[in-house]
């Protein structure tokens, strides 16, 4: 059985849609504290559109799933989270080899390409209190696990744990990017909503791959 195929990709994105829908209120509450309170609603709207695309499409390659999902987020979400998550998924899809499946090393490289896309578009560095603070540790954990010979469930669980740790570690930080940066030091003491939604996405991968 291949590690990463069209079925896994679609299952992951459907689980991600369920997660951002279930936790939309949490994301909105976090965003109300240091942003404008629409992160949950925006991601729910975007991933609902992604599921509609998955329902109505046949995919030739595993990468196509992510490319289409990314383009959908860019077209439907707006704000900063639409372009950021949309570009990440597009970059992941484009970095995967053509064909129906890929191996774990391919997925590790693709996840890294997604992180690079987010960093390039948003200009955020680690510690700026953004998506990058969850995404960076998650990719590093995934890469380490794959290099150490782990199977997908173990690598995905490690990535989700690292993303969660990273998201929680944003709480004391002062935001330097995005709308929370307008608050200056008042942004400290609140967990970053973007890092939190990134955690939900990696947790969704861990959930669908769990044995």
């Amino acid at each position, binding site marked *: 059985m291949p590690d990463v195929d069209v079925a896994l990709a679609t299952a992951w994105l459907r689980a991600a849609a369920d997660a951002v829908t279930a936790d939309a209120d949490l994301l*909105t509450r976090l965003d*109300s504290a*240091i*942003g*404008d*309170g*629409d992160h949950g*609603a*925006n991601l729910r*709207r975007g991933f609902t559109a992604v599921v509609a695309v998955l329902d109505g499409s046949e995919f030739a390659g595993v990468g196509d799933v992510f490319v289409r999902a990314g383009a959908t987020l*860019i*077209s*439907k*979400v*707006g*704000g*900063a*989270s*639409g*372009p*950021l998550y949309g570009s990440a998924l597009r970059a992941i899809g484009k970095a995967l080899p053509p064909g129906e499946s890929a191996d774990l090393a391919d997925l590790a490289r693709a996840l890294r390409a997604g992180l690079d896309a987010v960093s390039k*578009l*948003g200009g955020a560095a680690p510690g700026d209190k953004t998506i990058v603070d969850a995404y960076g540790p998650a990719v590093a954990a995934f890469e380490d696990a794959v290099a150490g010979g782990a199977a997908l469930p173990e690598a995905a669980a490690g990535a989700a744990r690292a993303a969660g740790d990273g998201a929680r570690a944003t709480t004391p930080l*002062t935001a*330097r*990017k*995005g*709308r*929370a*940066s*307008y*608050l*200056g030091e*008042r942004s400290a003491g609140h967990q970053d909503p973007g890092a939190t939604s990134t955690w939900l996405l990696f947790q969704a991968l861990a959930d669908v791959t769990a044995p």
Partner: protein
Amino acid sequence: MKKFINDPNDVVAEALAGIAAAHPGDLRVDTAGQYICRADAPRSGKVALVSGGGSGHEPLHGGFVGPGMLDAACPGEVFTSPVPDQILAATKAVDGGAGVVHVVKNYTGDVMNFQMAAELAADEGVTVETVLVDDDVAVENSTWTAGRRGTGATLLVEKIAGALAEEGGKLAEVAAIGREVNTASGSFAYALTAGTTPAAGRPGFDLPDDEIEVGVGIHGEPGRRREKLRPARDLVRSALDAILEAKPVADGDQVIVLVNGLGGTPLLELYLVYGEVATVLAERGVRIVRRLVGNYVTSLDMAGLSITVTRVTDEMVRLWDAPVRTPGLRWGA
């Protein structure tokens, strides 16, 4: 939450339908493309101005579409920037072959989505120049923030650049004067209460009866700090100190002043505040040559106001006075 809405998810689409119904003949609303444009667009040979941003700031931007100002506006979801598809569709709809100026308020999401749209437009042969508006001096313009926010000066940029485009200005000239107006502008805002987005259903923040948010933006996010409420004349002095420190004016300079309500502030208070602004600027030898008092760049139902001071040249004043015919701003036409 008490609002005049049906389903919170349909607010923007239904308001767009209302704009179309209210301004037949002047505006065209493309419900599929989700943009508002001049009924006579595209105007051949004219540089077109396109702006947009989250909804909830009305009359900005849709209310400023018309002769002498914007050619099109793209409303996003409430407080959420429009998506690239929308901006691209509007850009192509109004391009008259002379290029398109995007007026973009400096927020992370707006900048990203307009940038993506500009790249897509370039792929299709439309030349786009972007004018970034970042006039809110409450935010430090440093690498530690996303940069100053675009607020009240957006109206002045759209009016003055729009007038130059209307009288035949070239793409580079229209963009240049838009940037000059932005550079010459500083704004500062206070909030007495938070606004309530239809989706969230409750105010963005809670404020005790005797406290205000200082240095707020236009998206319901909290400001730089909280302070006790003080008399209006004190608040005006503090705001003008902050504006003039960041954007100095010299004795004898001429300025346009915008005293702008954020949606839930009575005109009675806005005029009181304008009177205080006039007093302070007169003390400093600054000449207010034009002024605007009212609700133009709002934040839903937030009680609060912003003050914008723009140092203007004679050419900017001439363009400010040029005819404009839009739902939100209309004179001489």
